């Protein structure tokens, strides 16, 4: 299904067009919409609290392999933090900003303010060469995000956190990943590595729906933009009634698929 999806070849002008040309209004979900989503997700059995996001949607509900920290897994947190730091009141080069991010996390570990399994704890046990590689990966990420950010004429900021929505009585949390927020949340940008899957459009709609429900006022971002720099591709979906509803449907479908696959695995 490609309705409502906009596909562009990545270029500075295309980025500007897609980000700055977002519609002026986004859909607003009502209490009835929230209750309907909760009822549908609540009807999908689960034996534990589950998290549904675009990644699960794109994988058709297939569970991910157990998480472990790698340079690729760490680059987004460090890279986004570095770009935020580099564009603050005391700007520094991205390379130095990433190093500062890593140093901050290591200081937290040294001060006993870090949990086991956290990024800081993982970094604290790395050889200097491994830390340098993590830094290189994060610099690459931050540079890619900066390339996207400077294309827009509007004010932008690096997202401080992903958006989460706990669905009432459904033992479900929805997550919308976001890297850049343009114009007070009007446009949200996600940076993605590799080649977009065929289900990338569904993933983007899932992000849009999750971000909309996570908003206290239920206001949808006017446009959700996925940028795949490796593939030179931009995908965007507008925050319309149709797209948000479609996003809700793919989230429910992912929960059903996850539940079925979980049952098969258990059997």
């Amino acid at each position, binding site marked *: 299904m490609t309705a409502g999806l906009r596909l562009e*070849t*990545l*270029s*500075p*002008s*295309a980025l500007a067009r897609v980000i700055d040309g977002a519609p002026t209004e986004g859909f607003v979900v009502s209490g009835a919409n929230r209750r309907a989503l909760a009822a549908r997700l609540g009807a999908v059995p689960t034996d534990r609290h589950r998290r549904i996001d675009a990644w699960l949607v794109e994988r058709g509900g297939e569970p991910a392999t157990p998480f472990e920290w*790698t*340079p*690729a897994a760490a680059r987004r947190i460090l890279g986004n933090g570095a770009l935020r730091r580099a564009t603050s009141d005391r700007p520094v*080069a*991205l*390379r*130095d900003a990433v190093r500062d991010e890593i140093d901050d996390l290591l200081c937290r570990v040294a001060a006993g303010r870090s949990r086991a399994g956290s990024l800081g704890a993982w970094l604290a046990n*790395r*050889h*200097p*060469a*491994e830390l*340098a*590689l*993590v*830094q*290189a990966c994060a*610099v*690459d990420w931050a*540079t*890619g995000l*900066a*390339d996207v950010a*400077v*294309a827009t004429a509007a004010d932008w900021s690096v997202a401080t956190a992903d958006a989460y929505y706990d669905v009432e009585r459904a033992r479900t949390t929805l997550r919308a990943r976001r890297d850049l927020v343009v114009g007070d949340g009007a446009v949200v940008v996600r940076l993605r590595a*590799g*080649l*977009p899957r065929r289900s990338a459009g569904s993933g983007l709609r899932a992000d849009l729906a999750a971000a909309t429900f996570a908003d206290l006022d239920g206001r949808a971002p006017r446009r959700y933009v996925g940028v795949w*720099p*490796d*593939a*030179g*591709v931009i995908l965007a979906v507008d925050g319309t009634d149709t797209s948000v509803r479609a996003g809700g449907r793919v989230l429910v479908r992912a929960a059903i698929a996850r539940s079925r696959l979980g049952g098969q695995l258990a059997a």
Partner: protein
Amino acid sequence: MTLTTTPTGSILEALRGDRSERPRRDTETAAGLRAILEDGLCELGDRLSRSAPLVVTAASVVRRDDAIDIARAPMGRLRGALVAQLVRLGALEHRSDNAFIDALRAWRVDQPAADLLQVFDDLDADGRARLATEVCAHGATLDRALGAVPAAWSVRTAVRTRLPLANGAVVLRDTVDLVVGASRDDTASTVLVDVTTSPIGSSAARLLRYHALAQCLRTSVVPWRVAMFSTATGELVTADVDVTLLGAAVDDVLGVVRQ
């Protein structure tokens, strides 16, 4: 194309040159090149399938008779993979006492290909010692050539391209070791550097233009220069990127797909 034997000073400084001499950023050419590629691929019609995409890589565009077998052999690939890690570390000004240990640490944490990991694990003590000596020698050449990399330069390492063409039936894959300069600048300022542990062969021109084409299509901005540095010989080969060079790269890619 210019071949410089054992360049003096930093290769990055030499490649970036004088800012005032750089041409304006070209954001127009990429669309035309893409159109020529798509037209050429469209003529192949049913021979291409989205369910089983044809993957074109830098290795595919090198003619078989030009191929440097030493670089494709498992030990050559392993050495190349380790030196590629040194490029990443060197670009961040990471300095070490033992290049081999550092390269190995970085390579292992970067989730290497299982087959290469097996090659390494199967090495006996002598084999590892030989590899360590080789990697340290290549690392020393690289260190001298890279020199100091200012933090203000926009440097990216192991930059990947995974470009879908013909509605996903063909995928252009590429990895460039170093990309210096931002494609967002008003002037052409992006320099691509491929580091090889083999001597520079007759296939260098094809490789360089393939890198330039992949970067150009990925960002829609024509890079300024593309270069290959050999840590085996210390030679540097460079080419300024223009429409002629990119057009030849398009022909190379279409030639590979038509085979």
